[in-house]
């Protein structure tokens, strides 16, 4: 049996106190312990990007961080981004462009795209493609995702 540890952090603005196995990764904790199933496990080795979340404002792979490492941290998942309205413009653009098909990569894609936009990224298709290169999508061909990000940046500039 593995050891347990106390964990206190904030998830989507709410304080969370839990006792978790020290080997449990943050993604499993969010999904299985908190029922926040929007973040997805695609590879569990930090490559596919489907579990991308924000920890203290920075995108991280939920599968590459242990839950106990989130002690004292502010964690935001796709559910939190939607609830607060932070992802609303991107969500509207993704819908208008059909920038998702199965939707499994989408929560991570939203987090990465938001990081690009909030970081002042411009409507430069190559730069957007480079920024999103940590997020696998097997359905769309990526073009509509790039279009959607450009739409949000263009809309914000007007």
């Amino acid at each position, binding site marked *: *049996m*593995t050891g347990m540890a106390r964990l206190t952090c904030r998830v989507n603005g709410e304080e969370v106190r839990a006792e978790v*196995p020290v*080997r*449990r990764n943050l993604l499993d904790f969010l*999904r*299985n312990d908190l029922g*926040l*199933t*929007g*973040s*997805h*496990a*695609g*590879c*569990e*080795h930090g*490559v*596919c990007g*489907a579990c991308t979340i924000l920890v203290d404002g920075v995108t991280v792979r939920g599968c590459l961080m242990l839950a106990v490492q989130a002690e004292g941290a502010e964690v935001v*998942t*796709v*559910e939190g981004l*939607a609830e607060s309205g932070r*992802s609303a413009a*991107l*969500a509207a653009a*993704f*819908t*208008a*462009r*059909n*920038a*998702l*098909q*199965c*939707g*499994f*990569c*989408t*929560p991570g894609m*939203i987090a990465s795209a938001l990081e690009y936009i909030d970081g002042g990224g411009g409507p430069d*298709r*190559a730069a957007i*493609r*480079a920024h*999103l*290169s940590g*997020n*696998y*999508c*097997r*359905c*769309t*061909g*990526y*073009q*509509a*995702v*790039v279009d959607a990000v450009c739409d949000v940046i263009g809309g914000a500039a007007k």
Partner: protein
Amino acid sequence: MTGPATIFDRPNRYIGTAEPRADAARLLQGRGRFVDDIQLPRMVHAAFLRSPHAHARIVSLDVAAARAMPGVAAVWTGAEMAAHVTPWVGVLTHLAGLRSPPQPALAVDVVRWQGEPVAMVVAATRAEAEDAVERIEADYDPLPAAVRMEEALSPDAPVIHPEFGSNLAWERRVETGDMAAAMAQPGVTVVERTFRFGRHTGVTLEPRATVMDYDPAEDRLTMHYSGQAPHMMQVVLSRHLGLPEENIRVISNDVGGSFGIKIHTYGDEIAVGAAARLLRRPVKFVADRMESFMTDIHARDHVVTGRIGVHADGRIAGLEIDDLTGIGPFSMYPRTSAIECNQVLNLTGAPYRMEAYRARGRVVFQNKNMMCQYRAVGHPIAMAVADGLLDEAGRALGMDPVVIRQRNLIADDAYPTTSASGMKLDDLSHQKTLAKLVEVMGYEALRADQAAARARGVHRGIGILSMVEVTNPSPMFYGIGGAPIASQDGATVRLDAGGALHISSSVTEQGQGTNAILAQIAAGVFGVDIGRVKVTTGDTATVPYGGGTWASRGAGIGGEAMLLAAHALKEQVLEVAGVMLQAGVESLDIRAGKIVDEATGAERMGLADLARTVYYRGNELPADLKPELVATRHYRVSDMPFVFTNGAMGAYVEVDTDTGFTKVLGFWAVEDCGRVINPMLVDEQVRGGVVQGIGGALYEECLYDDQGQLLNTTMADYLVPMAAEMPDIVVAHVETPTKTSILGAKGAGEAGTGGAPGAILNAVNDALAPLGASVWQMPITPERVLRALGVVAD
């Protein structure tokens, strides 16, 4: 009365418009319902011990220590599981001669590929199940492995199933015309090449996932299924777990990509069903990524030798292919692993006229993971071989790739006709499609750019490809051969009391937008706002019986059933309205949720008024009126084995002759999928298909060593196309509706994957040709390019 023929001009026109998907919002907010999101009371988790050997005898399996591990609910060896799951055999009668031995859910006595499940642990958490798997003591006696398909038929190859005497699973030949005479004609130039297509796999971002929930009180098993064909899976579970079909419910909610990967019978998933029944509690299994690479079906793995003979004017005299394909140790159940080879024989050269066609296909067993139908089954091989040979022939004649295709494509006014392989073809538009491709890609300007680049020492190439795609399959695909796979699909449309439509269909959604197009069809044909249409798919308990979504049939078959059902309901509703309004049915129509006067559009009654009267106040209706506010219709393709589509693709690449790296500068796809129901969804599906095709052409390969060990089992080692490598892809359409249905829609989902590899191959060889080099192996890796250039030697 408005008949089906006029549905495309109606005021509530949704067919042909870029409607956004209603289910996008849920997925964008993290509110998807994927199988791994399901948490049920008392649910336990499965993990599997898998064979580390490609071929070995199981000497002993000691599971005592595993059973004693914390959290463990049960452990089964393959032999123990065999008492609860009957084995299956992946053959179909219409593939005459195909053989495959009974396959158990978990290996018994012998393991035949690395990754084959050997024992199963069920525990409170997946982590505890994996801990216990580590404690199983397994002792194997390794056997010689038949790994390379080229050697699988040699007399000294290890025979994987001794009762068969060889590793040959199936062989088929096709012969049309007199090949020897055609090739021997004066002035015929003959070109021969050998093409190699590596193994790759679907890499669905959501891995295979199953939750099995057994209710002993009703002897009922519910499978939460990440897949494409719920009714097929119901039969498979029934047959092999020994439960009545009606006691099995299969539910597919959100599916995180499938591409054909999740439509097959996997022993680990069936064992999960048995475990749920034996433990009388829900059991979840979600493959991890290593398990996905080792056990999700692989695709392709062909060596094809092809010969083409062309006259001096470019016309094809003869085309001959010999396809060898390796399928792993068993033919996959229930679709078999011979369909891809069958498709290669059926489809090679199908866009072109020729005097003679000859093909041989051989399907062989080997000690690798199983190979089966993945997106664009057989098409990438068939198209790359025919169009690769055609380009070589063109080079030999000094003829432009566009011109040699124009000389050979079946004329747009020649339909109906039959391909050299015997396929019935109708409603195709090869010439128009190629002309449009030349226009949208700016072919002449690209040739000029290529020449300018060449002058700078930069090697660019243009690849052109013309193709057919098998879509809307009839019963001739699987049903005729005895597979429990419906070729017809059903749709139900119900008018609810509030005036909204509830629709359901037996085709399924894996992200293509199936639910969205079904709503578009129902709303448009019946006459309501699309926001008032709610869709249910993917539940054997509630939807009509049908085949699901595969072989690009969702829109063409499921869509037609929905059109027929919506039209039938409209007639039923108008009949009721006619009585209530004392008006002739022909004088009424349904528009925007209202019964209106057909001629003036004036509102006569709201749909909700009508429905509420029927449902709540039937006393107001004449006694002899029997209102039916629900209609169900089914549809199957009956006049063709398949409804073929066609397309033309163009690729522009740059090959770095120092590094061997190929960069895709541009890609163009012109597709004729008949009537386009939602151009936005179709375009992005074509793009996604092209990107998967580029993956197979340039990056993706399951690499085995000569012991049958898979070398790349992580996403870091197995390359798929990422955003940065992919170009923007231009998609254009020619619309030639199929006459087999009112809707006129053909499939569109697989064309990109089927055509892009050949277009890329042709582009790379166009870039390399002036250097005296060529590549005939996919993926076209930098190493293979450098070998072709002689920069790297063996």
